C-alpha cells in the first residue's frame, strides 16, 4: 500500500529531558521538523529507477519534473517556466528556469533534460517508455531551451511532465555509468526543495531543507523524517501520541482516520490524489465461462452493493464508480448506463447467462484491512445473488503471480489513471495490451476492436473537443459490456496536524508538497 506521512516530534508527550532541560522546549527551538509515516519502507530512493508509492512520497520532494500540476491537473511552471505548442501539435518547446542548481551545486541545464528523457528514463522507466514511443526526438536548442518533436499528435503529452513520470536526473552523475548499479543511487541528488540526508534502514529516512532552492521563501521546514512502522495500530498510536504529524493516505486504517481526525489539532483531507485518480474494480477472467458471458458480468456488477462497501469497508472514504473513468481524469462522463444494486435483477441476469452453479475463485487484494473487508462483503453479495464463491488466500507476491499468469476467476485490483484516459485507462481494455507478466494491463482478456480503435484515435488526437467525443463513445460501450465490475474511486485521506498549512499544494499531493508546507 502506498502511504505518506509527516509528523512533528511531539516530545512533550513523552516528558523526556536531556540533562534536565525538558525536550519540548528544545522541540520549539527546532520548530521546522516534520515527522511523516511511510509504509512500506521503499526499496530505493532513486526515482528514475524505482517508482512505487513510498519512493514517490519521499523522493518526489528530492527530484523535480519540468512541470507541476494543480488539483485541476492544469500544468504549472516548475523547472520549465513557459512552453509553446506548434499548431500541428507535434512540436513542443520548453524554456527552462535560470540558475537552478543540483543538490551538489552543479547547474541544471537543458542537457540534463535531454539526458533524462532520451537516455536514462528510456532505459529505466517502464511507464514513461510507453509515452516515449510517441516522441521522435528530444533536443537542447540552447542551455535553457528544450524541444520535443512528436511522431504524431499525442493528446496527453502535456500531462507527462510530473516528477514521478519524468523526474530530472543529473547527467554529470549518471552519464556513461551503469544506471541500475550506480553507487550514487544510495544518495539521490535532485533539484527539489528537500535534500537527502540519511537513511537508517528499518527506522527512518531523513531529508533536510535545500537552502539553495530555486524558488525563494518556499522552503519553511528544516527537517523531514519519514518513519517506518510496520504495524497499522502502532502507526495510529504514533499519530495519536504526537510522535508523527502526517499520516498519508493508506498508512492508517480508515476507521482510525475518522476517529483521529476528530482529535483537537488534527485534520484530514482527501485532496492530493487528483493526478493519480485511483480506481478500483473486480477483474473477470474472460478466458473461462461464465465470465466470458456479458449477462453474467452484468449480473455480477448488479449484485455488488457498492454503497455498503464504501460505507463499511472504506468508512466513507470511497465513492462508488459509475464506469471505467475516474471522475477526476480528463473526459470522464457519467452519461452512461447505470447499474444500481438490485439482487432480483442480478438473479434474472444470472439465469439468462446460463450459469450452472459452479464455484468461482475470488482473489482478494492483500493490501490491508479495508481490502479484506471489501472482499468479504462482495463474497456475501454474490452469494445472495446465487453465485458460489471460494476465497483464495494469497499474499502480495501470490496476487501478482496469479494476475500475471491469469490464474483466477474474479480478482480485485486498483490502478492509477494518471489524469488522462490515454495514459491510464486504455491499457486495461485494448487488445494490444493483453500479455502475461503484468497485473496492470488488460488482465481480463477483453477484446473489442471498436474499443481498440477509439482509444487509439483518442491518443493521437490533439483537439480536446474531439477527444471528448471519442472517449464518451468508448465509455458508453464499456459500460454496456461490463468487461470488469467497477467498484470505487478511492479518496485516500491524508491525516495531519492542523497547524501544518499548505499540506497539499498540487495534484500529486504530499509527493511534492512536503518541502513547501508551513508550520504555524
Amino acid at each position, binding site marked *: 500500500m502506498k502511504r505518506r506521512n509527516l509528523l512533528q516530534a511531539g516530545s512533550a508527550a513523552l516528558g523526556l529531558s536531556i540533562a534536565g532541560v525538558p525536550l519540548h522546549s528544545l522541540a520549539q527551538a527546532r520548530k521546522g521538523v516534520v515527522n511523516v509515516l511511510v509504509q512500506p519502507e521503499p526499496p530505493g530512493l532513486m526515482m528514475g529507477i524505482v517508482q512505487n508509492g513510498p519512493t514517490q512520497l519521499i523522493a518526489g520532494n528530492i527530484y523535480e519534473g519540468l512541470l507541476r500540476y494543480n488539483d485541476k491537473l492544469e500544468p504549472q511552471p516548475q523547472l520549465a517556466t513557459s512552453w509553446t505548442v506548434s499548431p500541428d501539435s507535434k512540436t513542443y518547446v520548453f524554456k527552462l528556469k535560470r540558475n537552478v542548481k543540483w543538490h551538489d551545486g552543479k547547474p541544471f541545464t537543458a542537457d540534463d533534460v535531454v539526458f533524462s528523457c532520451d537516455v536514462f528514463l528510456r532505459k529505466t522507466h517502464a511507464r514513461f*517508455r510507453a509515452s516515449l514511443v510517441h516522441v521522435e526526438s528530444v533536443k537542447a536548442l540552447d542551455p535553457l531551451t528544450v524541444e520535443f518533436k512528436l511522431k504524431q499528435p499525442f493528446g496527453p503529452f502535456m500531462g507527462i511532465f510530473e516528477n514521478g513520470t519524468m523526474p530530472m536526473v543529473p547527467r554529470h552523475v549518471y552519464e556513461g555509468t551503469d544506471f541500475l548499479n550506480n553507487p550514487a543511487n544510495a544518495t539521490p541528488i535532485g533539484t527539489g526543495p528537500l535534500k537527502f540526508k540519511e537513511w537508517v534502514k528499518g527506522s527512518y529516512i531523513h531529508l533536510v531543507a535545500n537552502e539553495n532552492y530555486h524558488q525563494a521563501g518556499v522552503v519553511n521546514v528544516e527537517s523531514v523524517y519519514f518513519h517506518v512502522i510496520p504495524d497499522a495500530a502502532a502507526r495510529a498510536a504514533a499519530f495519536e501520541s504526537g510522535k508523527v504529524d502526517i499520516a498519508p493516505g493508506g498508512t492508517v486504517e480508515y476507521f482510525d482516520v475518522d476517529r483521529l481526525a476528530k482529535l483537537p489539532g488534527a485534520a484530514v483531507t482527501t485532496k492530493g490524489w487528483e493526478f493519480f485518480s485511483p480506481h478500483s474494480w473486480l477483474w473477470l477472467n474472460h478466458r473461462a465461462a461464465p465470465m466470458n458471458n456479458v449477462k453474467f458480468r452484468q449480473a455480477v456488477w448488479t449484485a455488488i452493493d457498492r454503497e455498503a462497501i464504501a460505507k463499511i469497508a472504506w468508512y466513507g472514504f470511497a465513492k462508488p464508480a459509475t464506469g471505467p473513468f475516474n471522475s477526476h481524469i480528463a473526459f470522464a462522463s457519467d452519461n452512461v448506463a447505470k447499474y444500481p444494486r438490485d439482487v432480483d435483477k442480478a438473479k434474472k441476469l444470472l439465469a439468462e447467462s446460463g450459469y450452472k452453479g459452479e464455484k468461482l475463485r475470488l482473489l482478494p487484494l492483500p493490501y490491508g484491512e479495508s481490502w479484506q473487508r471489501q472482499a468479504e462483503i462482495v463474497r456475501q453479495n454474490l452469494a445472495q445473488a446465487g453465485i458460489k464463491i471460494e476465497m483464495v488466500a494469497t499474499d502480495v507476491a501470490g496476487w501478482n503471480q496469479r494476475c500475471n499468469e491469469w490464474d483466477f476467476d474474479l480478482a480485485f485490483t486498483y490502478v492509477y489513471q494518471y489524469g488522462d484516459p490515454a495514459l491510464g485507462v486504455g491499457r486495461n481494455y485494448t487488445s494490444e495490451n493483453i500479455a502475461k507478466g503484468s497485473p*496492470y494491463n488488460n488482465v481480463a482478456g477483453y477484446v473489442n476492436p471498436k474499443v481498440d480503435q477509439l482509444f487509439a484515435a483518442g491518443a493521437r488526437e490533439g483537439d480536446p473537443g474531439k477527444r471528448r467525443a471519442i472517449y464518451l463513445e468508448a465509455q458508453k460501450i464499456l459500460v454496456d459490456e461490463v468487461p470488469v465490475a467497477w467498484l470505487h474511486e478511492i479518496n485516500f485521506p491524508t491525516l495531519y496536524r492542523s497547524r501544518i498549512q499548505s499540506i497539499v499544494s498540487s495534484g500529486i499531493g504530499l509527493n511534492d508538497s512536503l518541502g513547501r508546507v508551513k508550520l504555524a
Partner: protein
Amino acid sequence: MKRLQYMSVRLLQGLAALLVIATANFLLVRAAPGDPVSIMAGEAGASDAQFVSQLRQQFGLDQPLPTQLANYIGHILRLDLGYSYRQQQPVTDLILDRLPATLLLTGTAFALSLALGITLGALASRNAGRWVDSAVTVVALVFYATPLYWLAMMAVLLFTVQLDLLPAFGLFTVGADLTGVDRVLDISRHLVLPAGTLGLFYMAVYARMTRASMLEVAQMDFVKTARAKGLAPGRIQSHHVLRNALLPVVTLAGIQAGGMIGGAVLTETVFAWPGIGRLMFDALLQRDYNLLLGCFLFTAAMAVLFNLITDLVYTLVDPRIDLG
C-alpha cells in the same frame, strides 16, 4: 580429550547441516508463488517486457536453477551471503545492521524469562499445594495462554495510549539526537514493553518446567537421603534439588535461545523493533531471496551453535551420560 573430540565432530556435523539447510531453504523458498521481479513490477504501477527482463537479469534470475544454486553455495562457502537487490545492499551488512537490536531484545527477554521463570517455579514447588503454588501457576499459565500479539497490543494500549508512560515503537526517539547516558536511558525505555512482553510470555514455560522438574527430583532417593542426614531444607533445595531439576530447563532454554534470535517476528512487528525477525518476514513478503536465505542461514547457524553448547553443558552436568 574425549570431550574435545566430541566437540570437533559435532562442529563439523553442524557445518554440514548448515549447507544442507542452505540448499533446502534455497529450493523451498523458490517454490512459493511469485518472485521479486513480479512484486517490483507490480509496485511500479506499470511494467513492460524490457523492465521485467532487466530486473530478472539484475537479480540473477534468468539463469537455470542448478546454476543459481551452485552460485549460491559457492558464495556461502566464501562466507558471502549475497546481495539484496531490493534493498541495494549486501545481505551481510543488512543482517549485521539489525543484529544489535535483536540481541538486545532477545537477550533481555531471555534473561528476564529465565530469571523470573526459575524463581517462580522454585517458589511454586517449595510451596506445592498451597495458595502460592496456585497463584504462580495461574499467573504463568495466563501469560502463556495469551496470544503474544494480543498481549503486546494490550500493553501498548495501557502504557502508551492511556498512561503515556512508555514509548510504543522503535528503538529510540527519532529526531531527538540523544547521546551518552540519555541515549542509553531512551533505548531502555523503548526496550521495556517489547522485552517485557516477550519475556513474560516465555517466563511461563520455564516456571512450569522448573516446578514440575523440581517436584520430580524432590521425591528422588538422594534427596530423601540428604533430608535424613539432617541437611537444612534451604540447602537441599538449592544444592541438590535445583541443580538436578534444572537439566530439562537447560535443555529447553538452549533450544529457545537459538530460536529466539530469529523468532521474535510478532514482537518486532507490533513494536516496530528493527530486528532480524522483521527483516526476514519483509524479505519473505517481497520474495527477496538472497536476504531471506541469508537470514535463515544466520539464524540456523545460531541454533546449531546453541544446540552444541547446550549438549556440552548437559554432558558436563550429568556424568551419567555416555558420549560414546
